[in-house]
Each structure stands twice: as C-alpha cells, then as structure tokens.
C-alpha cells in the first residue's frame, strides 16, 4: 500500500504548491476511498450497505457512537455512546489512529492508521455518505469548502485491484478535474518529476497496451475450429501469477521479517491478529504445531500447510481480503517472511528471497497422503455380504445424541449461544 500512496501524496503535494492551500476535496475523498479498502473486510458504506463484522459507516461522521441499529457493539462502545461520544472529526481521528486506546474494549481489531493524512482522507471519504448511504449534500459533504461538488464516489473505480497504472490514471484525472487547468496543461514530464518515475512509466505502458488491443485485428487461433485469438505475452504475464511448490512462477524479489511486520500490522493484523492468532472467526495463521492429533486441532501455516509456495501464492492473489493483488512482489516476500517468523520458523533478521525460497520446508511437509477412501474397511464390510434388510440390529433404536440439546440451528439460536462444534470449519 505504502508504495501506491507515495506517488499520490507526492502529486497531491505538487498540486498544493501550484494551487496554494488546497482544502479537503474530492481528491482527498478519492484517496480515502482507496484507503477504505483496508476497512472494507469489516465495514460497508454506500447505498444498501449492511452491517458486516463491523457496523455500516453511512452517516458516521458527526454521529453518536454506537448508533447503528441492529449492530451488536461491544459493551465499551455502547457505554461510550451513552456517555456522549460522537464521531466528530476530532474524535474519529483519534479513534482511527488508535482504536483500542480511544475506546478501550472496542471489538474493532484494526491496529490504527499511522498517517494523519490517511485519517483525514478517510474521514473526507466517509463524510460523503448520508445515513441512508446516498451522497450527502455537497455543502455537508464538502463542509470545508472543496472546489468541486462532485463527490469522488460518483467516479468510484469499481475494481478492487487498482494497479499502479490505474492509480496514475486516477491521479491524472483528479488533477484535471480537481486541480484546475494549470496542472492539467502541465507536460507529463513535470508531473513525473514531482511524482516519481513509476507514475509516468506505468501510465505510458497502459496507453501502449490499450493501443495494441484496440488496433490489431485479431488473428485466427489456428486451432481445429479457429475460434479465439492468440494470447499476448503481456496478457499471460498479467494473469499468470501462480507459484508452484517447486518454485515455478516465483518472481524475482525479496523481503525481510522486519519489513513484513510493518505491512502485516497495517494490512493483515486487523483480521488475523497481531500474532497470527486470528480475530473472531478469521483464520489463525500461526501456532498449533503438534495439535493435529488433538481433539481440537489448530491448522495453521506452521502446523498444517505443506508448502511455503502456497502462502506466497495465496497472499499475492487474494490478500489483503477486500484489496486483492495490492501487495507488490517484494511486499509479498516480506509478509511471507513475517508469517514464517510468527510460526517460529525463522529468526527476526531473516530475509526471504527468490534464491532461498525453495529451500524452506514447512513442518507438515510430509503430513499428507493420496486419497485412499476406497480402501477403507467399511466399504468391504458393506459390500461383501447381501445388504441386510430385516432385523439388522438388536433392540429398538435409542437416541444417543440430539441436535436440540445444542440448539445452534439458525432462527432458533441466539448468536451468544453458538457452540464450538464445527466453528471455523468453513473459511
């Protein structure tokens, strides 16, 4: 994430210089929207937003704490609301910086946003939503005098996986719409000076790729039915990110435990816990070694997963939840290194890279065997004889266990009474 933010902030800074004191604006809100993806695993906002593991955030700015109907707040948050806590910009900023410090005992597991600018941007974003999720009135939304009345949500990019090229494009758009003609007319090179090379380079790539697709008439597939067209190398590279246990598909790169800790704390810990212990029902990532034969095994990367390549592949393709493919190759190395560290498999000064990756065996590497269900004894037992049809068991049937005792069926069970059985079976 930090890598993405850097160019944006740099450009924002440049825009500020040109325009003199740009106040909170659609640009901040648009940036806030990107940052909000980190929150979106637990919170929804916008029309039709429902409570998730966190309450809906429609109309949250300036509202009383613990005020969303139907959401089960922590006792601490409910108390805070009763005692008059309201989410003014000041209080909300403090909460977002350190949730558990501001409201001790809150259920919100997120560690907090470190940068004041990110907090301000998120609040600018949330301010755009009225109680029902519709766009708040402009004067309300941009109370502090934004230049344009078109809230960022109207132009919201639906994609979850904003590539750097898209970020650059977004930045350009914001400059054109939000910052006025001066910046829009500025040659690209100047923006690149201010924003760093990556913006210019990736924006250029995008244009080139766009032209390829638009202009080349698709050649025939050459297959028996001549359907489809040849896949281009760049296209395959864009989608083919899978990594195999033998290292095939692993990109060049590296990351240290220390780097991983920073990324993990910011991007992963809110669901998976500061030590990989898992918040609520989110997956546990660390610990559990030696528990596979226990009554309640704890299946983690360290105790169960056979291959490190799976960790890298999965984090890279699907994490952070709700903001998939937002980690760079190096960031993924770093997070993977940190997960090894959380599982006591490497020391704190460890660096994981494309060279040493394949040499690392996870503890449960040999804990799997092929499917041999067909050789289970009951198959032979059941199949051998004629299947019994009459008087197959002695005595009348006695109940040995009943579902009603547990009483965990939905519609019938209060969520406080959930049983431990089967919990976490699905994730």
């Amino acid at each position, binding site marked *: 994430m930090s890598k993405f933010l850097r160019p944006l902030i740099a450009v924002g800074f440049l825009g500020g210089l040109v325009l003199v004191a740009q106040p909170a604006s659609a640009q901040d809100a648009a940036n806030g929207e990107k940052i909000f993806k980190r929150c979106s695993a637990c919170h929804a906002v916008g029309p039709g937003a429902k409570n998730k593991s966190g309450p809906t955030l429609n109309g949250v700015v300036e509202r009383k704490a613990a005020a969303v109907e139907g959401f089960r707040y922590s006792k601490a948050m409910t108390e805070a609301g009763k005692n008059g806590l309201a989410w003014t910009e000041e209080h909300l900023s403090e909460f977002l910086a350190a949730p558990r410090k501001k409201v001790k005992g809150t259920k919100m597991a997120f560690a907090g946003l470190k940068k004041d600018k990110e907090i301000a941007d998120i609040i600018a974003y949330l301010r755009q939503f009225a109680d029902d999720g519709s766009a708040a009135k402009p004067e309300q939304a941009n109370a502090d005098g934004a230049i344009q009345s078109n809230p960022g949500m109207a132009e919201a990019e639906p994609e979850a996986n904003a590539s750097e090229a898209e970020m650059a494009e977004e930045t350009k758009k914001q400059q054109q719409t939000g910052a006025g003609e001066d910046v829009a007319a500025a040659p690209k090179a100047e923006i690149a000076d201010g924003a760093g090379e990556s913006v210019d380079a990736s924006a250029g790539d995008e244009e080139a790729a766009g032209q390829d697709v638009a202009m080349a008439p698709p050649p025939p597939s050459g297959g028996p039915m001549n359907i489809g067209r040849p*896949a281009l190398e760049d296209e395959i590279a864009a989608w083919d990110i899978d990594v195999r246990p033998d290292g095939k598909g692993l990109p060049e790169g590296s990351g240290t435990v220390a780097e991983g800790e920073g990324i993990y704390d910011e991007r992963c810990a809110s669901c998976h816990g500061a030590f990989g212990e898992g918040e609520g029902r989110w997956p546990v990532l660390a610990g559990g070694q030696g528990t596979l034969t226990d009554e309640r095994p704890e299946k983690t990367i360290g105790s*169960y997963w056979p291959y490190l390549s799976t960790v890298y*592949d999965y984090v890279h393709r699907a994490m952070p939840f709700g903001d998939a493919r937002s980690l760079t190759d190096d960031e993924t190395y770093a997070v993977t290194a940190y997960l090894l560290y959380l599982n006591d498999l490497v020391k704190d000064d460890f660096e994981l890279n494309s060279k040493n990756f394949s040499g690392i065996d996870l503890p449960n590497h040999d804990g799997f065997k092929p*499917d041999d*269900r067909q050789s289970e004894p009951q198959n032979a037992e059941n199949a051998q004889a004629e299947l019994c*049809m009459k008087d197959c068991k002695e005595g009348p*049937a006695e109940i040995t266990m009943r*579902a009603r005792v547990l009483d965990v069926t939905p519609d019938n069970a209060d969520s406080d009474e959930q049983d431990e059985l089967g919990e976490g079976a699905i994730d």
Partner: protein
Amino acid sequence: MVESAKARGRIPNARRQFLKAGLTAAGGTLAVASGVKAAQPDPKITEIQDWNRYLGDGVDASPYGSPSQFEADIVRRNVPWLTADATSSVNFTPLYALDGTITPSGLCFERHHGGVAVINPADHRLMIHGLVDRPLVFTMDDLKRFPRENRVYFLECAANSGMEWRGAQLNGCQFTHGMIHNVEYTGIPLRFILEEAGVKADAKWLLAEGADAAAMTRSIPIEKVMDDCLIAFKMNGEALRPEQGYPVRLVVPGWEGNMWIKWLRRLELGDKPWAQREETSKYTDLLANGVARRHTWVMDVKSVVTNPSPQAPLTHSKGRTVATGLAWSGHGRIAKVDVSIDGGRNWSEARLEGGTSKGVYRFYHDFDWDGAELFLQSRAIDEAGNVQPTKDQLRAERGENSIYHNNGIQTWHVRQDGVTENVEVS
C-alpha cells in the same frame, strides 16, 4: 420447548410455522382439514372467494416471475456463526421444501470466497496457456461458437454435513445437507477448448482460475478434464446466476464443488499440480492420526430424507404418508435406495423417480404411519456397488476432524406429534 423458543422472541416465520404445525398435529382435535369430522360445510367452498370474483394481475405484472407470495419463507439460509464474514461464507439450499430433482436457480446454495464478482460478459475473457501449442484468448461470443451439450449434474460442497462429524448438531436438512444443488447445464466440453489450443504431451494437470476477488484456483488432472468437464454458461436454460459464476463456470461432474471454478477466466496446463490454498490448507481431510488425505475429489454415495425432516414435520395424524428424499453419487448412477423407519433395524427399497449419472435421484417411500415415533434413515447404493456408510463407521476410520466428505447415514426422529429432530441412534 415451544415456550422457551417463544421467549427468545426471535423466531422467524418458517420456524414458527412448523412449530405451529407440530402443535396442530399434536392436538388432533383441531384437524378441520382432515374432513373426517367435517360436519359443518367448509366456508372456503360454500362462500365465493375474492380470487374467484375479482380479476387478478394482468400479464407483465411480474416480467421476470417470482414464486408465490405464500412461498416467501422458502429461501436460502446461512449459519452466521460458521464464518467470519458473509463475503467468504456459505448458505444452504432449502431441500426440505423442494421436490423432484432440479433445484430452482434462485435456491441453489451459494459459496463464495471473496463475494460475488459482478462481470459484464462483454468484459469477460477466458485465457488458456501453459503447456499448449497456441495460448489463446476467448470472448463470451467466441465460446458460444463451440459445440455445446446439456447435462444435469449435482454440485455438492465437500463440507456438506461437515458440521455433523461430532454428532447431531443442526436441526434441518437445509443445514445438514443443503450444500448441494442439481441443475441442467448448457456448456462446452472442456476438451474442445484444450484441443483448440493444442495440448502438449507433458501436460498432466490443469489449473482453473476464477476472476473474483479470491482468484479461486484448483488443480485438476488432465484425465478428468478430457473426460466430462464442461464450461457452462447456462443453468436451467437461463444465464448462470451471478452467485453461480456468471458469465461462465467450470463443471466438474461428481467432484467436490470447490473445483467448479466460478467466473472462470484462466486455464493453465502444466506437468504438476499447483498445491494451491484450496487443495492444501483447505479441502484436505485430516485423519485421527494427524495425517491428512489430499486430492479427495470424488463425492461419495450419499442420501438424505428431506420430508419429513425438522423443518418439514408431519402435519397429519396416523395414516397414509410419504417419506421422500434425495440420493446421489460422484461415481455415477444410483442403483438403489433403502429407507428405514426404525433406525436401521429393517429396510425397504424405495421407489426412484428421476435421476441422472452424477446427478441427484428422487426417492419415495409410501407407507401407512401407525402414529408411533419414527427413526427415519435412508441408505444409497451406487452402480459401482458403493454403499452409503453409517456415521459411526466413518468416525471409526477417520476420527472427527475431517470436516469434508461426510456421507454418513442421517437419522430423523419423528415424534408422535409429528415434530421432527436431527438425532443419532444406537
């Protein structure tokens, strides 16, 4: 029980209705509809009803039709405590309310790992690459130029009945067995796509990938791919529902649902499996000795009585009745289903009505209920001779932490008042 349930004050309609139904049956004297004691003429017959006098809605009142308002309780439901968040969760098909073999599209259970991807078919691409002669890209329009087939198959989640390993837990076949659906697919044999790209000799595995936020991936052996897998874009004659992978999904007949990649966008040929998250950390079956089975793809022979069941109690007093349910096997056809009303002491062969290889079969057991309590079970046998095992047989062999592939025999206890409960019996 009824009072304590009421005291909670959170009983939705379906639940309330079947509690009421149970009470009515228990009362017996309230059985107006039975006709036996109908000394007074039934006003529903003797009086002219509104719907018999006044006009109803015209055509187009509901351009895409919905079920009757009186069926509003028949919906997919989830078990909130199972998962951390609805975007990576599952809900369940209301099997207790369905008959026949085809599952209505809107009631097919959902399982997502990153929410429902919303994809305009004009923006969708399917790529095939890896160990092929010609890496190719197809649009949806391209795909519809391949020859296509219609096939009915069941899709069962490997974790169906997974919450029952330690014993009877959830009260309703919707929850114990509802991670299954059975629809007619229109699709392209996957081998046509592979042949179009030209498969290299050393290609032994296929990686299929979804376009959703989980970018779901599974490795599938090439033999299965070339045998009966489809790329489907229609279900029950209409476009796939978004939650079932619109615009295109993989169909892997008889194998666990997780492999049926939705929002299918990429096919990669390789010489080894990829050991992705959903085939290592998940969808592997941990045994009591700490070793786990992997690549447990086939869904074993299985059946369940869907009526009566906890959400569908018997609502009449003793007399003629019907027990019905579903049977299926990932190994092929169902050869026979037996039903027991005494907890497995005695069995009767049930009547099969409809069914396909690797699709569900409907069975009926018609009998005179003597009004005594019932312990209803069903036992399916497939054409390969596989017999559905008891839950105790499975536990003895695997322990209680396998999560997946629980195909044990289910028992429903039907009380004299018709109320039905999920139990296990000696």
